[in-house]
């Protein structure tokens, strides 16, 4: 977060292609007989905004959850900053401190105030003292326009506000990448905009983002790279204008037709 400079230039991206932030190699995941991921390879570079699209059951959410091992892959490898995080000796807790995640259902901690929701991670894991963590939380809250909610409890907030707080909670750990799992799917329509705005701002600041979403408009305006998944495979990927406006695969065309209708 808060990179020194924005990293949207082609040159910067191509330079970093050689040294990806996240690398996924032959990633497989099955639940019993159900094969959700059947071998996925993907590189994500620093500053890149990747949007995962696909029908439900296509494996996009599982793919995202495998990136920080909330799902344990049944095959393949995931590299983060060059480290194989699927290796047995890897301390996944340390890795997760550098990967923020935002959930469909927000998953704020209902027994803690907004302030404590945000400062819990920095204080317990990064050794920040209370003042420092709270100052940082206030700064982040200001950025999403919710500084006056610091002492409120999650249940007092609307869905959109809760999701913005969830984003702040993840950002408070200074992650290298933010993973979004359908962040607007559980929201009332009038609240989708405020969350997408925060996400777009975040993208502009240069945050690396992997987003599972059905918001095609968001994918078009923010994504550097769009991946369409179906049946546990990546079916089609590329620049948003290529995948979204001129899809080559019939399954992509079919999906987009349904979504955009």
């Amino acid at each position: 977060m808060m990179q020194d400079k924005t990293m949207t230039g082609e040159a910067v991206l191509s330079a970093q292609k050689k040294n990806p932030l996240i690398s996924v190699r032959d990633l497989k995941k099955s639940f019993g007989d159900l094969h959700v991921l059947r071998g996925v390879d993907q590189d994500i570079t620093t500053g890149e905004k990747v949007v995962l699209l696909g029908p439900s059951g296509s494996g996009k959410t599982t793919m995202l959850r495998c990136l920080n091992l909330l799902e344990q892959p049944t095959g393949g490898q995931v590299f983060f900053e060059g480290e194989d995080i699927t290796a047995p000796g890897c301390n996944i807790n340390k890795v997760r401190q550098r990967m923020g995640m935002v959930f469909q259902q927000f998953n704020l901690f209902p027994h803690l105030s907004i302030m404590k929701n945000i400062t819990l991670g920095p204080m317990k894991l990064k050794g920040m003292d209370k003042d420092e963590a709270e100052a940082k939380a206030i700064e982040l809250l200001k950025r999403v326009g919710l500084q006056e909610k610091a002492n409120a409890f999650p249940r007092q907030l609307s869905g959109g506000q809760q999701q913005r707080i969830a984003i702040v909670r993840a950002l408070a750990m200074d992650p290298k990448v933010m993973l979004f799992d359908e962040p607007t799917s559980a929201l009332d329509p009038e609240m989708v905009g405020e969350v997408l705005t925060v996400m777009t701002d975040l993208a502009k600041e240069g945050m690396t983002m992997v987003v599972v979403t059905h918001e095609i408009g968001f994918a078009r305006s923010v994504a550097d790279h769009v991946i369409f998944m179906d049946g546990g495979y990546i079916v089609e990927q590329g620049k948003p204008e290529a995948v979204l406006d001129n899809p080559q695969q019939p399954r992509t065309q079919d999906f987009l037709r349904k979504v955009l209708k």
Partner: protein
Amino acid sequence: MSIIGKKRILALLAALLLICGALVPAIAETGSAETDKLYAAIDESGYAYVTAAEATIFYADESLTEESRCGFLRKKVTLLATSYTAEGAVQVWLKQGGEVTSVYIDRAAVKNPQKETNIVNQAEKAGLVPVEMEVGSVYVHDASVKPLVNSAFQQWFINLAEDFYKNIIEYDRWLLLLQGLGNTMVMTVGALMIGVVIGIIIAVTRSVWETNGAKMQPGVGKFLLRTLDGFFTVYTTVFRGTPMMVQLLLMTFVILKGIPYAMLVAIISFGLNSGAYVAEIFRGGILSIDKGQMEAGRSIGLTYAQTMWYIIAPQVIKNVLPTLANEFITLIKETSIAAYAGVMELTMAGNRIRGQTFSDFMPLIAVAVIYLVIVMVLTKLVGILERRLRQSDAR
């Protein structure tokens, strides 16, 4: 209806009761002023009867011997009321020179049935209600005891008061109840503490196995967890599937018979039993927490234990607290069976008093009332606690 409305009605009822309580003796007194012109009499031949108003009677002086009865002192007395003892004696309450006293007239000594009937008839005519008295009860010849036994209600009330005095006040018997109550509370608190410790251990082990067992790598850890889970499953099944009474007796007379402290054995027994129930309470509490909470905690980088401690546990405790308090209330009542293991708890204290006074009603009712009051107070507190917790949810 609002709470205030209820309170008002309750206050009104209480006031009504008080007024009635004050009025009953007053009414009885004024009533008796018209009808108590009856006289108790014992004639020269030793026969006793009650005769009509304004008659002169002989006052039975118990110190007089058979020979000297002929010379009974003649004293004018006013009959206030009559009642019957179960042995068949008539107790006659008299007013003599401003002092209230009573004499017993042995009905067995009334050889002439006509005269006995007279006593009863006269009394009834005068509007006096004969009252059966309890077997073995002792009536005090005491001027301070108000002898106006004009209604069944009053007699009942006086009996109750005497019963209360005999069973609770006399010889400081209430101390026995207090000691029993103390032991009941000590047992309950001790048992619940053991129960909570056991319950948490079981609940955490079982829910960890339930949620993570399938994902664990085979090894010592998995084997241990599986074994523990199996053991705890058997534990809860056995302790919830057999009567507490049987468990207590087994503990006292078989398993822990080497321990000479009945109370300690009882605490352990109730604790082990309660643990099985508390485990289910906590397990339900843990499973009721959305799994997104664990994921959110882990996604920040918290370890499993940290997430459990900072995120899951506080929510579980909040969910579980009212149920746990109810378990405490249940336990208070359940410990009454510790009497069978020789613990001097509240119920046994009541029983002890029964043995001393040969009365059943007062000691048992007293014990019941003490349990009820404690349970009601605690239930009220649990209600307040629940409301508090709900408020903090909505906050």
